């Protein structure tokens, strides 16, 4: 059954959505600027720590350990949180999470709530669900406010509005906050947001948040933020509801000593973000009187079963892999048509949909490995990408349509060619002759006829060289030395190497 709301926005494939976005030069230049700035800052503040790699190792080990014993740590968290006066709820899917949050809000009879930026609530479509039930959720993070007032979608999960520049933000604020005189300096825009929200912080009684980490040993919750809107929401209202994915748990409070170093440095390139809040349950005279945690599964648990892709859930959502990704640089986040964009989105989104949606996303990568290099918890994204591509192919091969599909037939044909030296060299010689009519003035092949047109749809090809390696080798090898350059072995090796990039 399809969930009521989906973290994957439409059925459009990545290449289709990306093509549209590549034509928006404003978005592209905004994205390029923002990602370049964060990346340079990130490189500087991670580079200055002599123990950066050891922090990554520890972060990876702690996250992997937490996932390996997730049921144990979640139960421990629940006990700790409950003991401290919090209430823990469990949601199997998006619809259930929405229903729980709505019910809690309705119990207090309010029609407006505060929101702290949370990708988990985007994932389940919480705002829409509340809206449909007559409850207005006010986003309080500056970027989320820009997105909400601009009726837009987030394109990055640390800086969701990075595709908007100051002029565009000014336009939205002028229109939506009725401030025709508003200036365009970032300071002006931030202070407009401050006055717009301040009254709401003091007036509204219920807030909804996500969380960066849950602490099993004492039931604590941790939120990392910049502006203080988070602190406002989790300190001033009477009721706080945190919607959190089940994977976010850490065993002990002290584990934060690792992640509060790696997360800010990776996410915004700061040594520490302006505010981190950690709290446990409720406390008399300090903060909300009622605190709820909604633990969301929404198809996370089945991911644990796959030893190779389980590491996807280690993610701490720093978005360093987005900033480092050459594909994301070009397209921005919207092309992924998903709450979770970039390299992590490419592996997480399809898995959150049991591989039924977002199937083009594992292909939205050049496998250059930049994401793995920067990941503070060492998720080997290229490895998972290849693994998921393999799964998709395997599944397709199970259907008749898949077996008769171009990719499968093409790969089968290629396998047949590469398996035999004589067939390969025959094909090469044929190709050298036939290709001549397709080579353009720049010496490249832009379009091949069906059935090969699929291959040239997204790339130009260099023509086959006048002489293949094997032809060249045969000419230069002195007689009697065939054993060194056994053409059959060379051919097979080349065949394997050549199919790697599929």
């Amino acid at each position, binding site marked *: 059954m399809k969930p009521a709301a989906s973290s994957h926005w439409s059925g459009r494939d990545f290449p289709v959505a990306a093509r549209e976005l590549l034509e928006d030069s404003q978005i592209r230049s905004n994205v390029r600027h923002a990602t370049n700035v964060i990346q340079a800052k990130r490189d500087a503040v991670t580079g200055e720590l002599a123990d950066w790699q050891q922090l990554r190792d520890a972060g990876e080990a702690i996250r992997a350990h937490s996932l390996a014993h997730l049921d144990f740590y979640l139960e421990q968290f629940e006990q700790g949180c409950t003991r401290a006066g919090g209430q823990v709820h469990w949601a199997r899917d998006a619809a259930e999470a929405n229903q729980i949050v709505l019910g809690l809000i309705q119990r207090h009879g309010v029609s407006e709530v505060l929101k702290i930026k949370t990708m988990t609530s985007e994932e389940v479509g919480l705002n829409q669900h509340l809206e449909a039930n007559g409850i207005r959720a006010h986003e309080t993070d*500056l970027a989320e406010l820009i997105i909400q007032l601009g009726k837009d979608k987030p394109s990055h999960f640390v*800086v969701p509005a990075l595709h908007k520049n100051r002029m565009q933000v000014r336009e939205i604020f002028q229109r939506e906050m009725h401030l025709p005189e508003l200036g365009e300096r970032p300071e002006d825009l931030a202070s407009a947001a401050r006055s717009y929200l*301040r009254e709401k912080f003091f007036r509204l009684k219920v807030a909804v948040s996500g969380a960066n980490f849950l602490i099993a040993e004492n039931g604590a919750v941790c939120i990392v933020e910049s502006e203080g809107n988070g602190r406002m929401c989790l300190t001033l209202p009477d009721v706080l509801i945190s919607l959190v994915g089940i994977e976010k748990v850490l065993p*002990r*409070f002290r584990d934060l000593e690792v992640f509060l170093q790696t997360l800010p440095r990776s996410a915004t390139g700061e040594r*520490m973000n302006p505010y981190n809040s950690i709290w446990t349950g409720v406390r008399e005279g*300090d*903060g909300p009187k009622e605190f709820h945690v909604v633990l969301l599964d929404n198809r996370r648990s*089945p991911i644990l079963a796959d030893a190779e892709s389980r590491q996807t859930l280690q993610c701490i959502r720093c978005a360093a892999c987005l900033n480092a990704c050459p594909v994301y640089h070009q397209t921005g986040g919207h092309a992924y048509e998903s709450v979770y964009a970039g390299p992590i989105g490419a592996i997480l989104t399809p898995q959150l949909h049991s591989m039924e949606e977002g199937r083009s996303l594992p292909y939205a990568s050049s496998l250059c490995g930049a994401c793995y290099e920067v990941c503070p918890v060492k998720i080997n994204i290229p490895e998972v990408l290849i693994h998921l591509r393999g799964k998709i192919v395997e599944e397709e091969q199970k259907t008749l349509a898949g077996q008769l599909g171009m990719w499968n037939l093409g790969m089968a044909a290629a396998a047949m060619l590469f398996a035999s030296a004589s067939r390969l060299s025959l094909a090469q010689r044929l190709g050298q002759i036939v290709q001549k009519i397709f080579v353009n003035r720049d010496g490249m092949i832009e379009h091949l006829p069906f059935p090969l047109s699929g291959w040239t749809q997204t790339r130009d090809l260099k023509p086959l060289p006048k002489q293949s390696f094997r032809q060249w080798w045969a000419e230069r090898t002195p007689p009697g030395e065939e054993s060194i350059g056994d053409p059959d072995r060379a051919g097979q090796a080349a065949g394997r190497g050549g199919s790697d990039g599929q």
Partner: protein
Amino acid sequence: MDSSFSARSEVLRSIRSALGQRMEADRIAAQYGALPRDYKRAGTLSQEDRLQLFLRRLEEYGAGVKRIASHGIREEIGGQLAARGCRRLVIPYDLPAAWLPLSFEFTPYGGEGKLSSSLGATELDGMDGVLTGCTVAVAETGSIVLQSGPHQGPRALTLAPDYHLCLVFADQVVETVPESFAVLDSTSCLPTTFFSGPSATADIEMTRIKGVHGPRFLDVLVVE
């Protein structure tokens, strides 16, 4: 509640069936104990270098900083408040009276009974500023940690007012983040707030600008 109970058991069952057999708690603990932790867990700087690093980081964030002597706390606080043009301040109810200069108006907050007044957020917002101590501070990241401990008050106190004057004693400053966690660990259930400079955002074109919702102005006095 029926459906919530079954959601709980279903989620846990689904996790368990994905993970396979569950380990005994003590084996999980042993496995946890063996996780690699080869990162820096203790500082190496001298006290002087550590303080200088701390002050430099705070300045980079746009905070005002000053080193003061312990016998001059009251005068220095007075000077700082006067320079900021603050007159009406809110303080944690347990702040030592010896710190408080005359000719300013201090309203105690938090605690029980007659010591405290109960100000709402709007009243706090109407104050010129707040004066507090802290639990621990981290030089490497320019962070100060409040844990609702002595001289710190509840969280709203240091959130709603627009100006925060914070006293940090030199021996509260550690070099690294892990050292700060060693201090915080025994009281980890208290509400804990790390703040690093005044509130800020970089959401518009990645320009860090000061002052969104938290206090927009921060001064730190380091007492030696």
